[in-house]
């Protein structure tokens, strides 16, 4: 891939730093950002030639084509390895399941891969694919359904035939349907084994209530799903005018298109309209929900509802969250909770700015039972500082510069790049999102970051899930918010 262009990122993000100032600890947020170490002074003098690069674009770096039956292709040849990657995407997913269809998108996706086709029994599909070492994986996300394949270029013809057959003609036999439902049940039975997973799951369920974003496999619903439900879901979503294939690797484009037309021959357009997704409603009452589980460490997730991806503040929010808890070791959370206080190995925050409906602001930490209150209180203090105290110019610039100069790594793999670009079209996002990303981050001002911290961090709306030895910390936590115990739903067959 040749995606070098003339944009000089280094010039764009050139910043001037104040000279090293040794500051006493003020307790103000980000106070260290004003200091400069001896090492940084040396590093600043090292030569860094300009990086000639700009984000890849459709039509220049990646080819886009539409086939007569409505399939959209994103293509990029790359002959460095004898492999071909196919990323198939369809609009549809868990967000579009009605309450009675809960689990249907995932079950259908799995069964397409594991249940065989009308012409080829399941076992034959597995044997044929394993023999030529072609990997096909089928899955469902909130907004998209995926069918991805990695095969050798030598055996690509045969792999593609099976891949197309799985998409067009899955058999959905009853024995495999029952088997896959049973596999889901096994997962449900085991889902409370690991405290960090319990915390993450229960937090999401609480803030989203009945919305699809908050669902997690409910056996009472999944067990009622029938073959006819699966067939109807497949008929509706897996149609060529709802299909995108991003293909990268060792192929000749003309030959590949001829092959695709042959493999998908007879796959006809159908009227398709995406249902209107449900809006997120306010979920559980703010407060602390405690799951009692033995152990010497508490697993904690807390946060509240946030914004959808069409919110104009997503870039400022990204910078704000980088500073608070998203920027890895440079974040306030890591510096204060982990590195200064030694209270946690993992501590971070995510502010989802890419979901169609309202995403979540989520903070995560695990700390030993005895310091549960201490860690939470410290994180709340950092959230409040973020909302109320001015940000230092140095730290603000440093966060922006980090997001921008690391951006090139987003496009480190060819298959990943094609996938990212194609996905914009699949989910109906601005086609220039990646092209304009750097400019949009660069436009964010310090005042923007301070404003979005005040607007979008809502301490009075926080929902906490704490999984651990409750007797040891319940009383202390009452100083933070109302504490109630959360019973995990029993598994009932």
């Amino acid at each position, binding site marked *: *891939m040749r995606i070098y262009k003339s944009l000089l990122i280094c010039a764009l993000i050139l910043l001037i730093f104040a000279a090293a100032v*040794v500051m006493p600890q003020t307790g103000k947020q980000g106070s*260290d950002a004003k*200091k*400069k*170490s*001896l*090492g*940084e002074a*040396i*590093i600043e003098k*090292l030569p860094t030639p*300009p*990086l*000639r*690069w700009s984000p890849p674009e459709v039509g220049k770096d990646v080819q886009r084509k539409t086939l007569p039956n409505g399939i959209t292709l994103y293509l990029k040849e*790359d*002959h460095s390895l004898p*492999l071909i990657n196919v990323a198939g995407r369809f609009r549809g997913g868990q967000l579009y399941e009605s309450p009675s269809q809960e689990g249907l998108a995932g079950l259908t996706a799995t069964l397409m891969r594991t249940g065989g086709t009308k012409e080829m029994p399941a076992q034959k599909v*597995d044997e044929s694919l*394993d*023999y*030529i*070492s072609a*990997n096909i994986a089928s899955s469902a996300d909130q907004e998209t359904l995926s069918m991805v394949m990695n095969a*050798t*270029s030598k055996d690509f013809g045969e792999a593609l035939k099976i891949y197309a057959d799985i998409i067009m003609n899955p058999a959905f036999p009853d024995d495999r349907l029952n*088997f896959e439902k049973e596999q889901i*049940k*096994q*997962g449900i*039975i*085991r889902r*409370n084994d*690991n405290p*960090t997973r319990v915390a993450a799951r229960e937090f999401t369920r609480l803030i989203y209530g009945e919305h699809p974003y908050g669902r997690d496999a409910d056996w009472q619903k999944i067990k009622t799903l029938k073959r006819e439900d699966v067939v109807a879901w497949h008929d509706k979503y897996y149609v060529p005018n709802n299909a995108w294939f991003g293909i990268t690797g060792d192929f000749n484009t003309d030959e590949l298109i001829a092959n695709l037309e042959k493999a998908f021959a007879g796959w006809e357009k159908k009227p398709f309209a995406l249902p209107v997704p449900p809006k997120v409603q306010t979920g559980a009452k703010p407060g602390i929900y405690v799951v009692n*589980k*033995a*152990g*010497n460490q508490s*697993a904690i997730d807390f946060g509240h509802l946030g914004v959808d991806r069409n919110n104009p503040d997503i870039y400022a929010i990204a910078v704000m969250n980088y500073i608070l808890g998203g920027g*890895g070791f440079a974040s306030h959370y*890591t*510096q204060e909770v982990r*590195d200064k206080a*030694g*209270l946690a*190995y993992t501590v971070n925050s995510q502010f989802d700015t890419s979901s169609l409906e309202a995403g979540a602001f989520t903070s995560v930490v695990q*700390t*030993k039972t005895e310091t549960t209150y201490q860690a939470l209180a410290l994180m709340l203090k950092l959230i409040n500082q973020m909302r109320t105290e001015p940000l230092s110019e140095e730290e603000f610039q440093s966060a922006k*510069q*980090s997001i921008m100069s*690391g*951006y*090139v*790594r987003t496009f*480190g793999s060819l298959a990943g790049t094609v996938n990212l670009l194609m996905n914009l079209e699949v989910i109906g996002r601005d086609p220039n999102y990646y092209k304009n990303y750097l400019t949009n981050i660069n436009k964010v001002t310090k005042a923007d970051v301070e404003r979005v911290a005040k607007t979008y961090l809502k301490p009075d709306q926080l929902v906490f899930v704490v999984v651990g030895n409750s007797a040891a910390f319940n009383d202390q936590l009452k100083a933070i918010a109302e504490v109630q*115990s959360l019973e995990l739903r029993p*598994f*009932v067959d």
Partner: protein
Amino acid sequence: MQKVFRLLTAMALGLSVLVSSGHLFGQSAGGSSVKLNVVEHKFKNGLRLLMVERHDTPVISSHIVFNVGSVDERPGLTGTSHILGHMMFKGTTTIQTTNYEAEIPLMQEMDGIYAQIRVLLDKRTNSTFTEADAAKVKELRAQIDALQEQEKKYTVQNDLDVITAKRGFNGLNASTGNDTTQYVETFPSNQLEVWAYFESERIHHPVFREFYSEKDVVMEERRLSTDNVPQGRLQEAFEATAFTAHPYHEPVVGWMTDLDTVTRQQVADYFKTYYAPNNTTIVLVGDLNPDEVIKLIEKYFGSIPSQTPPEGVHVVEPEQHGERRVTVKFDASPSLLIGWHVPNVLHPDGATLSVISSILTSGRTGRLFKGLVLDQQIASNVASNYGTTKYPTMFRLSGAPRNQKSLEDLEKALLAEIDKLKKEPISDEELQKVRNQIDANFARGLESNAGLASALGTSAVVLGDWHQILTLNERRRAVTAADIQRVAQKYFTTDNLTVAYLVRESNGPARQNRRGNPGQGMEKSK
């Protein structure tokens, strides 16, 4: 077997990277002439450099591999390799400091106070202090905290992370395993000299500041990855049972009391012994020019003196005489881990063992998935593992029974599949399938810069030479049906077997699965 120092970005180093053979750059199947454009350079001080040029995107992936891991630790110092990995992110005499000279007396004072704490730690009975000692420890720890706070006057918090993030590096990370310690990052290619500066500085002049709070972080990591996770508990018990004399017995993260008592000086001594250029391999893959890289590395790393090579591990695990079993109680669904002592991959039987692992668990037609999960429906999941190790290791099988089925059912079914390997020769078709997978998986392993860097570094350090990637492929392709039968018969014996069970010990109100989990035959309630 691998600890990630910093964030939980799990890396599977040494587990799956060396499973292959094959054809590259469009050459036909079955071809053995693999061409990897690796440039190797050895510096005067013994430092080894491996490079692969790839100019698709202007980024470079770096793996710096030190030939030291938990296997090199001694009793009382378990977890030291891993703690050292954490400390290497705490800066140098220039990085993270505005005045290193002023920090020295403060750190010395902290170490003096810690020496007093250690005396009290040793007085504990069943890890409990007397009331007076507990109060004294609390007071002493507060003194250390206060001194660490004073030191902040001269330090810049998380300086290395902030400096590098601003220049486009991903979150710097590292991981340690039984055999190696690896430092990894990916960065824009115009930052190569910045990379060379800070990576050489931290080998040349590291400073282990924030030592005591970082030990607390490592203890949290142990709680997170081992104490409170069923698979962590199970594996720790398994290794400690399977190995009696060899240091693979010890957990990479270390025992909790060792983490508590290890001193800054002990970690510094460990560093001095093992982080020598002649014990180090640097791997760079990406948008680079080999001649320029060699010049840069000579400039920054060339003055680091070579040292007497450290003492290796001499102890050999004695032959096992009779099956070993261990049970771990935990509030989780049952699972098991079983294994047999086997040689490492360099042994003539090594290629066959790795082929057997593929036969058992590669794809949906792998024998264990097809047999136990799909057909007999005894297990809800199964896995096998034969890793790339420096010393003789274990061939491991793991899995979880479906509800209604017991661990005993699952163990029996696993052993029945192993018996089949001993009794019936594998068909030509199944063997060809595995060979096809070897070819394809080899190419897949080269797709990402970081994956290739990891594979080269692991092979170079653990197996002594990066070419082993290629050699092992050829050896795997040459494995016959007779080899498989012979090797299965030789190693997979009852006397050589270790079995670890994880059984449910419910407590408190979290016993939510009781009604619907008839697998509770395995549960032992209080």
